[in-house]
């Protein structure tokens, strides 16, 4: 039986937004607790009296729950376990669910007895930047670093795969309203009523913003009634999208809002087929930033003990969660918030032992209400010290004036377990600032408010420093209407601003820091997460780190998981005081996305694992798989590497055997390979020949219809871009092929030339890569096979010579036949419309059955082309000229072509440049690895002059019975017949090789033309 109440000694018996009928069991640090639906982990822990929840980053000081929202610096836990473990999760934003499991972090062996707490004893040595001043000697930083790294970090992550999935979603809106507090709700309602497309986004489980945490009224009723009615009205509007549990994490160019929706984080695990989180990218015409404000702490000695909490958070726990953050409270605030808090906490049954107000006079109505309840009010005073170790036991207060004068004041001890502090509110200007918007300082509230907008954004409500509810509502109404109207949506007459009954509030007093008691080593923390104390700020200043940016980087102020939401402004205020400057001149550090940290998986969405990138398949893909192919990536494509025959089991030996088998088949009988991945471009138009003439280095004006020609293209900078054949299909119709890798770049290159530089040419290009399945049939028996396949075509050398092209059909399948060869054999390439690819391929296989036809993969293809000295991307590697690659003779001098001017530069035309050569081991058997470097003498000590490198290599040319390679060798063409060393120092290898011409098989090309 669940006896929720008894197990929740700090739960208030009524009120709050929690569902008392839905108790939820959860575990923290191995202990079982009960909370309610509607709790956060933080509120449930507080309800159970758990105050110590974590240890700080550097000094491992005990820390408790400090806030009730995204600004939480302390209460970071490991949530869930195994593949779902999430370190550094803010307990204040974890919605409670049944079965929740969390552990404290950054402590050893446990939270109460953390041995790393010794760091705190050594704190005087571990000041800001101590590591820059030491650890410089032997054995070197990498040694010391080992220990520093272990001590640093916060949560621990596991290397276990995440079982959940993520999604991405695009949205388009006229108006995006971020924040569903009173300002955002009012704005969304007004905008929505005009018919504008509105997105309303809030990071919480439901709208309401601060209204959920305060005892406010609107139109004489609880303010949340108004909020709920507004939400109901918005939900009825089709043009309004309400996204809760959604954080707008960044404001990007083009008024794009990045947001993450936590679809399933409030559940034990996502429901079937549901994602964990959804990343939104919302394009807005206008953005209304109703992101509210964040309360900041006061800085005083011992302000970090568990039990010290933001005043607004203490109110939120009491009002929204029906939890007493303590049994006996002291309140310390520099505005009327102190009195507001006292009233709310007293109402919640907490024994309020005093309100410490540093101001003397200037308070408003609320003070009288507090006084009327008999609560002790101490003016002109401050908390100067706290007591307790694992939890607050009491505070010392003293007169501020005396303290400021440097004299020792009298102190008074007040026992309490809760100290609620409020140092004023800072508008959440994050999103406004992401696009270089500069916040400006407003002395009236001692905070930065949005400056001029750089984008189509407008901040409203507390986000621009309007802190009264009435102002927030009025601001929202005006902004919603005006923005919609600005976009051309019709607006009716202006509604009245709902009535609020807020008491007049008093003035605000700037107090960046409470001076330490004379003679005391105060531990006044500015940044609770990173343990940056006021003394660190002053130390940095005294060492010359006076820019806020240097301060940040030297002390790590604001660099934790909370990004200084509660600490930056105090740190900057203290720096300003130390520099004797105005904080407005000191400025802020840069606000960067994300507003709160976002899971990396959410950015990838579904694009992970095998879907990380598209896979491109050729039309014959399934045939390859069904016929023993081992597939391999070639860019985005998958291509057969080699084929195992039935009965062969995958192994290194089987692979070698397959490669040899396929290579020999091509040389001795016939082979077929899938070359569908080659880029194919349809070129039409009256100026097509002129165009080809300009993009290729060789001439194209004389190519006859029905003929193909090999061509090489350069980049504008004179380096070889690509090679391939282009065939003339008709009078003004050409069919270009490119390499697989360069298909995209070449297509774009042509389009840009035509559209930008030569718009006067009548040429149209279209990519037909996907239209055609292409297969190469190569080998001495290929003619016989082709003749069988195309009984009506004459394949004799005269009728169908090398570089001939025919359009015909393969038993009803339209086909183009090209007599071209990459392997150097008599060979034909057949292209058929892609949907017929497999059928055509199967017919080829069938027709080749009696002719020893075997499918061959990339490996065999590689060997065959190396034997023939044909280059691929290994040689056309972006660093070589046409001359280097042996195409110098092809470069026409009778016409201009892309890249000609730059190729004529001294360094590009230098005869000593590397040139393509063949390389063969002197001993006839030692393999020459690709990636070897060519040198004159392997025994030279470094630095060794390099003569070139081995670009492609076949460990064995089965046709020649020895290893062969291609390489780029300085002055290579003049060195044929000489020897050079191919060295591979990474494996301590050196092979003496003979330099040969690139072609080492059938040099005369007899087989090709046969």
């Amino acid at each position: 039986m669940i006896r929720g109440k008894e197990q929740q000694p700090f739960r208030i018996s009524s009120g709050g937004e929690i569902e008392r009928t839905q108790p939820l069991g959860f575990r923290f640090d191995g202990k079982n607790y009960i909370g309610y639906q509607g709790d956060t982990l933080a509120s449930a822990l507080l309800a159970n009296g758990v105050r110590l929840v974590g240890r700080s980053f550097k000094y491992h000081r005990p820390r408790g729950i400090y806030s009730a929202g995204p600004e939480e610096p302390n209460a970071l836990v490991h949530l869930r376990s195994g593949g779902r473990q999430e370190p550094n999760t803010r307990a204040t934003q974890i919605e409670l669910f049944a079965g929740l499991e969390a552990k404290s972090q950054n402590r050893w062996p446990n939270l109460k007895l953390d041995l790393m707490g010794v760091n705190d004893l050594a704190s005087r040595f571990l000041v800001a930047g101590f590591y820059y001043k030491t650890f410089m000697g032997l054995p070197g930083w990498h040694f010391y670093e080992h220990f520093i790294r272990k001590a640093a970090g916060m949560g621990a992550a596991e290397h276990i795969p995440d079982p959940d999935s993520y999604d991405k979603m695009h949205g388009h809106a006229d108006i995006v309203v971020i924040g569903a507090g009173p300002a955002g709700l009012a704005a969304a309602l007004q905008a929505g009523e005009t018919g504008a497309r509105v997105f309303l986004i809030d990071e919480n489980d439901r709208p309401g913003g601060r209204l959920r945490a305060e005892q406010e009224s609107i139109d004489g009723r609880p303010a949340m009634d108004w909020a709920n009615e507004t939400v109901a009205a918005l939900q009825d509007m089709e043009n309004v999208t309400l996204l809760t549990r959604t954080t707008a994490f960044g404001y990007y160019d083009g008024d794009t809002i990045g947001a993450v929706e936590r679809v399933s984080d409030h559940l034990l695990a996502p429901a079937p087929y549901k994602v964990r989180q959804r990343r939104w990218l919302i394009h807005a015409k206008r953005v209304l930033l109703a992101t509210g404000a964040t309360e900041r702490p006061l800085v005083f000695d011992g302000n970090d003990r568990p039990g010290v909490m933001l005043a607004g958070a203490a109110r939120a726990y009491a009002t929204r969660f029906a939890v007493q953050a303590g049994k006996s409270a002291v309140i310390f605030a520099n505005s009327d918030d102190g009195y507001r808090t006292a009233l709310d906490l007293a109402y919640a049954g907490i024994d309020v032992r005093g309100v410490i107000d540093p101001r003397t006079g200037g308070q408003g109505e609320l003070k009288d209400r507090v006084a009327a309840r008999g609560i002790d009010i101490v003016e002109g005073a401050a908390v100067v010290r706290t007591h307790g170790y694992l939890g607050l036991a009491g505070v010392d207060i003293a007169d501020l004036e005396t303290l400021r004068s440097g004299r020792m004041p009298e102190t008074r001890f007040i026992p309490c377990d809760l100290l609620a502090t409020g140092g004023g509110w800072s508008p959440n200007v994050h999103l406004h600032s992401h696009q270089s918007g500069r916040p400006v300082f407003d002395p009236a509230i001692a905070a930065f408010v949005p400056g001029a907008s750089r984008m189509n954004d407008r901040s409203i409500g507390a986000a621009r420093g309007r802190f009264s509810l009435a102002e927030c509502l009025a601001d929202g109404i005006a902004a919603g209407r005006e923005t919609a109207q600005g976009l051309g949506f019709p607006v009716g007459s202006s509604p009245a601003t709902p009535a609020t009954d807020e008491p007049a509030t008093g003035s605000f007093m700037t107090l960046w820091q409470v001076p330490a008691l004379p003679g005391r080593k105060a531990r006044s923390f500015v940044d609770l997460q990173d343990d940056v104390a006021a003394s660190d700020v002053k130390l940095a200043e005294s060492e010359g780190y006076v820019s806020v940016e240097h301060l940040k980087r030297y002390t790590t102020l604001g660099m934790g998981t909370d990004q200084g939401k509660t600490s930056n402004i105090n740190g900057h205020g203290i720096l300003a005081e130390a520099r004797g400057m105005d904080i407005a001149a000191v400025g802020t550090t840069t606000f960067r996305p994300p507003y709160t940290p976002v899971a990396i998986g959410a950015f990838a969405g579904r694009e992970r694992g095998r879907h990380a990138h598209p896979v491109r398949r050729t039309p014959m893909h399934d045939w390859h798989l069904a016929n023993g192919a081992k597939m391999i990536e070639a860019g985005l494509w998958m291509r057969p590497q080699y084929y195992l025959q039935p009965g062969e089991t995958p192994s290194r030996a089987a692979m070698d055997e397959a490669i040899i088998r396929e290579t020999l088949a091509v040389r001795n009988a016939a082979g077929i390979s899938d070359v569908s991945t080659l880029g194919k471009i349809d070129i039409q138009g009256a100026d097509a020949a002129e165009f080809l003439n300009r993009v290729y280095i060789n001439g194209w004006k004389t190519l006859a219809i029905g003929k193909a020609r090999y061509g090489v293209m350069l980049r504008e900078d004179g380096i070889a871009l690509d090679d391939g054949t282009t065939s003339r299909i008709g009078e003004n119709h050409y069919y270009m092929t490119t390499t697989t890798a360069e298909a995209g770049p070449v297509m774009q290159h042509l389009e840009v030339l035509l559209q930008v530089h030569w718009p006067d040419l009548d040429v149209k290009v279209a990519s037909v890569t996907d239209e055609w399945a292409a297969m190469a049939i190569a080998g001495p028996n290929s003619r016989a096979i082709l003749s069988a396949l195309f009984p009506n075509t004459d394949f004799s050398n005269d009728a169908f010579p090398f570089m001939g092209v025919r359009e015909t059909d393969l038993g009803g399948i339209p086909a183009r036949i090209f007599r071209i060869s990459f392997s150097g054999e008599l060979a034909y390439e057949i292209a058929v419309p892609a949907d017929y690819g497999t059928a055509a391929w199967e017919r080829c296989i069938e027709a080749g059955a009696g002719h020893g036809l075997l499918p061959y993969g990339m490996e065999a293809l590689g060997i065959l082309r190396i034997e023939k000295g044909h280059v691929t991307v290994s040689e056309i590697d972006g660093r070589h000229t046409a001359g280097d690659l042996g195409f110098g003779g092809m470069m026409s001098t009778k016409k201009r072509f892309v890249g000609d001017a730059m190729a004529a530069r001294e360094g590009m035309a230098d005869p000593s440049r590397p040139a393509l050569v063949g390389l063969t081991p002197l001993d006839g058997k030692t393999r020459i690895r690709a990636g070897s470097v060519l040198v004159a003498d392997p025994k030279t000590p470094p630095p060794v002059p390099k003569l070139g490198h081995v670009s492609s290599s076949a460990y064995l040319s089965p046709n020649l019975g020895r290893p062969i390679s291609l390489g780029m060798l300085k002055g290579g063409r003049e060195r044929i017949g000489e020897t050079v060393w191919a060295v591979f120092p990474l494996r301590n290898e050196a092979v003496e090789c003979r330099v040969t011409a690139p072609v080492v098989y059938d040099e005369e090309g007899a087989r090709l033309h046969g």
Partner: protein
Amino acid sequence: MAEYSVFSLVRNALTGHKNWQRAWRDPEPKPSYDVVIVGGGGHGLATAFYLAKVHGIRNVAVLEKGWLGGGNTGRNTTIVRSNYMLDDNSHFYEKSLQLWEQLSHELNFNVMFSQRGVLNLAHSDGQMDRFARRGNSMRLNGVDAELLDRRQVMKMVPHLDFSDEARFPIYGGLLQPRGGTARHDAVAWGLARGADRLGVDIIQNCEVTGFRRSGNRIEAVETSRGTIGCGKLGFAVAGNTGHLASKLGLKLPIESHVLQAFVSEPLKPFFDHVVTFGAEHFYLSQSDKGGLVFGGDLDMYNSYAQRGNLPTIDHVMRAGLAMVPSISRLRLLRHWGGVMDMSMDGSPIIGKSPIDNLYLNCGWCYGGFKATPGSGWVFAHTIAEDEPHALNAGLRLDRFERGHLIDEEATGAVPGKH
């Protein structure tokens, strides 16, 4: 000025840290200097440091428009390596790496140079071949390199995606064991302190806005803090080079592009090396504070805004997950951008300019942090001797016109692709 050491730390701790001196002075600019360096990033500061230390030229000012190290020095992913293939780069970066190895000592400032190894992953046989060539070239130049096969990579970094689901299987990798990371801000501060101790004036919040010329010389720079005369003038303004040069009517083979960087929430030791993905632009290391620091590709368009855009962020995260699937639930804490001086061949330009007393140090693309001490070293030499050091002889500006490109990425005059 007091040396930093564990003893000085203890001594100061016992006296309440009241006696630390400023790390560097905050002088008013003098009317003129023998050498004025524009740009208070690592390169400008290192140049000043070595001018004073090696060449005895101490009447030097470093002018910084904002705060020291606020440029790319303060926003980079801190990878230090010398694993280059082409000789001009290889020798230069190796010299730089050697200077890194003694930098903390030389500066008496711990720049946290952590030689944790830089591993480049290969995802195809072709890529393995290219890495082999690079590694072999490194070895031949006396630089450390190791070629790892898949099994060795798995042993070294078991958390990469070795599963069958991996879209880009890992074939192996090229490791430079001496490569690693350094604490970027500390580099700027340490160099500033070091230069300052040798008499260099470091002047912050001083933006160079114009030049006074006489003939083919620059007599003085106009700044937001007045006119400052210069005997010689050196530019070390990285991404702002194009902008500054335009004020002199100089067109350079440079485009400014934005590069983003990312850091996760702090974690206990999770990733011990620097690893780069080979299928896409992505690299990962863990800072000493515990954040996973990662970066990817450029946003691909000219930009002087120090911030990036969402598509690139998605791209980088996706690549990250493809490389290390277990980062899925870890959270991105912050992302920012820096402005890169992308040169047309991806290699730096250090040397003389068409203007007599102007020296250029630019074109660092996204790899100039590792160059910091080396760049300062050769730039100081070039300025002091009025001719390049052997190590930057090939990195001269006229190489583009002459056709002697140093193109490691082999992508040509498309800066975004380097």
